[in-house]
């Protein structure tokens, strides 16, 4: 170890990475990455036309983006600039495939909810307007205010501006991670590989590319932490470096709760460790100041926004804890782990790759932790990343429960920062050892490392996403973005003319669309210990239905007749209203159409599949039938 170029002192290490530019490989790899984007676009085209070849072409395209860059970054030849360019090119290419998937409007659950808040800012000229989907969206207005400002000033739509802001956020995420890990490890090679491992986290390609506050927050977090390292490292920079880190931190606090908590916690722990290690407060004064400011600002904002925040993360956390306790005490069966969506299983091959990716990460983790320990880095930050990586194992345990799966998935963006750094140190230690210092002997290990990263990358995507979410295509019942089609979007846009503030109920997709495009309020909840979606499951309009309509003041009922044609792909039609252990048959068509037969309920819209009922006559004392 001690003799390798990557573990030598910083000055020697700096010489081990070529300076200047290595233009030909860089140009070639930019072309292969773009070629991968083109292949994915062709796969999407095929999927939209229901071609069977779309699925394999999609994976080939993804691997064409990822593997050549992997192979290049595992080697020693690439310069620092080339490595940074390559991770940025890869990050943007992987972002582009989410944009190409839905190139005309936002369709993911979180996107439609945040869209509503962005529209509210433009409409009211104010922040913090109540969001009926997730109250926390409005309380963390960073992405929303940025998008709204860009939209208002440019005159372009929210979709175009949101996509542009998120492209910048992706740039900041991959670039910021590279710079952060480079500074902590003194190695651009480790930094490049760490970003590759990070890109294999289950949420990177799709979830973290969506129009969601976390997508922007991750980029700001990476830059905040990098700026924080400058506070400690740059002794001559005065207070200005501290101010930049504080500025970025405040923007982060205004953008996303969990990410700001994680970053604040990391800075505080780091400052404490530096104080203990260096035993001189003068050396770490600026970092201590930053930690104090970050903690105070984060806590203050968290207290102020707590009622909204707890509704977003509280359910997930308590669900995880309760689920884990239930599994440990054998009260409930474990959930089928490493499936993207409860109730849905990817095809066998995808599941095998998903499990293989987790196994490969678990195998390499101890090896990486030992490599970090042996490396004895100058900064304690790398040890911090190692501690973060060690959290991977406990988060996997959460995947055994239905409630915990969501939490485990959401933590991967943070855990993979550490995991990426640790595995990168291990790779570099192995690939850079004297035993394989001859170029011809270095190629097979590099190929193996590339294969390893490829499996982890593909497995991450299959673990984090149901297959139907990855490719566009025909409408599917209760299948996230695949349930958003022109008919549903038109109905929602038409419903914008309905009186603002009225309550409505529909299936999950219609609730998301109508909330995004109208000023109606979706309703969720229970009545007599049953989710109010039960309104759509009984073939006859019974007294319970009328009580639900009255209690929740449901003015409009949105029905999609296609719900009666198939079981829900993601296990439920109506959020929080599903029979346990799941549906055996699709919801009855007569149950969906009963409102048209009922007295005193109007049918004000019909587009074939979608019907909108108005219960207003019930409210004014209609007594037909």
């Amino acid at each position, binding site marked *: 170890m001690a003799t390798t170029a990557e573990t030598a002192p910083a000055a020697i290490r700096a010489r081990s990475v070529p300076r200047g530019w290595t233009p030909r490989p860089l140009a070639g790899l930019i072309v292969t990455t773009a070629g991968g984007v083109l292949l994915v676009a062709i796969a999407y085209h095929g999927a939209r036309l229901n071609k069977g070849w779309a699925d394999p072409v999609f994976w080939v395209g993804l691997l064409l983006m990822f593997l050549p860059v992997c192979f290049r970054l595992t080697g020693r030849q690439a310069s620092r600039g080339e490595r940074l360019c390559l991770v940025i090119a890869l990050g943007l290419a992987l972002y582009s495939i989410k944009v190409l998937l839905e190139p005309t409007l936002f369709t993911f659950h979180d996107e439609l909810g945040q869209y509503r808040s962005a529209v509210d800012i433009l409409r009211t000229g104010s922040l*913090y307007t109540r969001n009926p989907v997730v109250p926390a969206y409005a309380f963390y207005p960073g992405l929303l205010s940025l998008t709204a400002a860009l939209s208002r000033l440019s005159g372009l739509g929210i979709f175009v501006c949101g996509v542009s802001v998120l492209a910048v956020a992706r740039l900041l995420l991959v670039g910021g991670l590279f710079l952060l890990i480079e500074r902590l490890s003194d190695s651009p090679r480790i930094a490049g590989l760490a970003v590759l491992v990070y890109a294999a986290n289950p949420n990177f390609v799709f979830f973290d590319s969506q129009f969601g506050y976390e997508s922007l927050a991750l980029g700001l977090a990476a830059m905040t932490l990098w700026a924080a390292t400058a506070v400690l490292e740059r002794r001559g920079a005065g207070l200005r470096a501290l101010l930049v880190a504080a500025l970025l931190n405040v923007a982060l606090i205004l*953008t996303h709760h969990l990410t700001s908590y994680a970053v604040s916690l990391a800075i505080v722990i780091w400052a404490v460790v530096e104080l203990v290690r260096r035993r001189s407060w003068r050396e770490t004064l600026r970092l201590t100041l930053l930690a104090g400011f970050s903690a105070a600002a984060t806590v203050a904002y968290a207290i102020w926004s707590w009622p909204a925040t707890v509704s977003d993360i509280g359910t997930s956390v308590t669900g995880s804890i309760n689920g884990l306790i239930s599994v440990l005490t054998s009260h409930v069966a474990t959930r089928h782990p490493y499936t993207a969506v409860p109730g849905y299983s990817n095809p066998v091959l995808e599941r095998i790759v998903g499990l293989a990716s987790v196994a490969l990460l678990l195998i390499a983790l101890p090896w990486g932790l030992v490599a970090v320990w042996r490396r004895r880095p100058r900064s304690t930050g790398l040890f911090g990343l190692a501690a973060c990586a060690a959290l991977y194992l406990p988060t996997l345990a959460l995947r055994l429960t239905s409630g915990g799966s969501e939490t485990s998935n959401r933590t991967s963006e943070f855990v993979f920062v550490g995991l990426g750094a640790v595995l990168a140190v291990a790779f570099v230690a192995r690939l850079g050892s004297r035993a394989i210092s001859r170029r011809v002997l270095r190629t097979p290990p590099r190929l193996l490392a590339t294969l390893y990263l490829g499996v982890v990358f593909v497995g991450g995507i299959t673990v984090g996403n149901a297959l139907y979410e990855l490719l566009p295509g025909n409408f599917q019942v209760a299948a996230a973005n695949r349930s958003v089609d022109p008919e549903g979007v038109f109905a929602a846009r038409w419903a914008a003319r309905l009186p603002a503030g009225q309550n409505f109920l529909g299936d999950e997709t219609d609730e998301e669309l109508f909330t995004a495009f109208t000023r109606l309020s979706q309703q969720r909840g229970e009545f007599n210990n049953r989710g109010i979606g039960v309104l759509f499951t009984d073939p006859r309009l019974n007294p319970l239905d009328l009580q639900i309509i009255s209690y929740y003041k449901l003015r409009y009922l949105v029905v999609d007749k296609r719900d009666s044609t198939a079981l829900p792909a993601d296990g439920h039609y109506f959020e929080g209203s599903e029979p346990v252990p799941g549906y055996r048959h699709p919801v009855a068509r007569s149950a969906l159409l009963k409102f048209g037969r009922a007295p005193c309920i109007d049918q004000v819209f*019909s587009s074939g599949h979608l019907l909108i009922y108005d219960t207003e006559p019930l409210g004014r004392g209609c007594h037909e039938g």
Partner: protein
Amino acid sequence: MRARALGFLGLSATTGLCAAGVWLTASGSPERAIAAFLLLLLLPGLAVTRLLPQAQDEPGGARLLLTLAISLAVVIIDSAVLYVAGIRLDVHSWTLSVGGITFVALVAGLLARAPASRGLAPRPQLSQVAAISAGVLVAGALIVGAVLTTQAGVRAQAQADRFTALWALPMGQGPPGVRIGVFNHQGAAESYVLSVSVNGSPYASLNPTVQPGGRWETSLPVSPRGHQLIVRLSSVSRSPSIQRTVQLRLTPTPSSSNNLS
């Protein structure tokens, strides 16, 4: 010092031009979009990084990232401050505040002690630039191909998703009546037959022809004594034929008579 003064003048002029572009050019026009993107996503960061000696020492990539991150942070915090100050978030407030922050930072950068730069990074040679440019050009062509392919796929899918929507709503103001509308997403011009009945009796028949992607709307006056209105749409030119129905109860008191306006 002269370089810094020139930089100050250049960035100040650009900020002013962008602000003017946002105010004076048409909404959604390319020049206004460019002005807005520069004003919000680049100029604040460029101005603030001129205050940071260490930013001047970072390699180009890192400096660009820092510039973008600071720009985003400035706009986010600026929006929050405007809200707290009770100022409406609109074109004027955002443009003035972000432009003002940028200008103040530029002035502060001009007045601040000159950053101790470690010197310029080595510039790439012409042959290197040519190779990378060629790669970027080819990649750009491939991305354009991806965009065109996606565009064609989206268009084909939209044409495959065919539907006709019929709706009816009571008119909120003015004389009693209803507003009826049709939306054609069948991919071709469509002739519809609309049969309107009030309290079970025929009231009106309409024959709109609606272009693909087009909407048709009309208002029908209905007597306050009219109780139930039903609109049936059909189009027999297609197989299977299109049938839609909507119904409204117009008054709170049921009536069995056919009282038309």
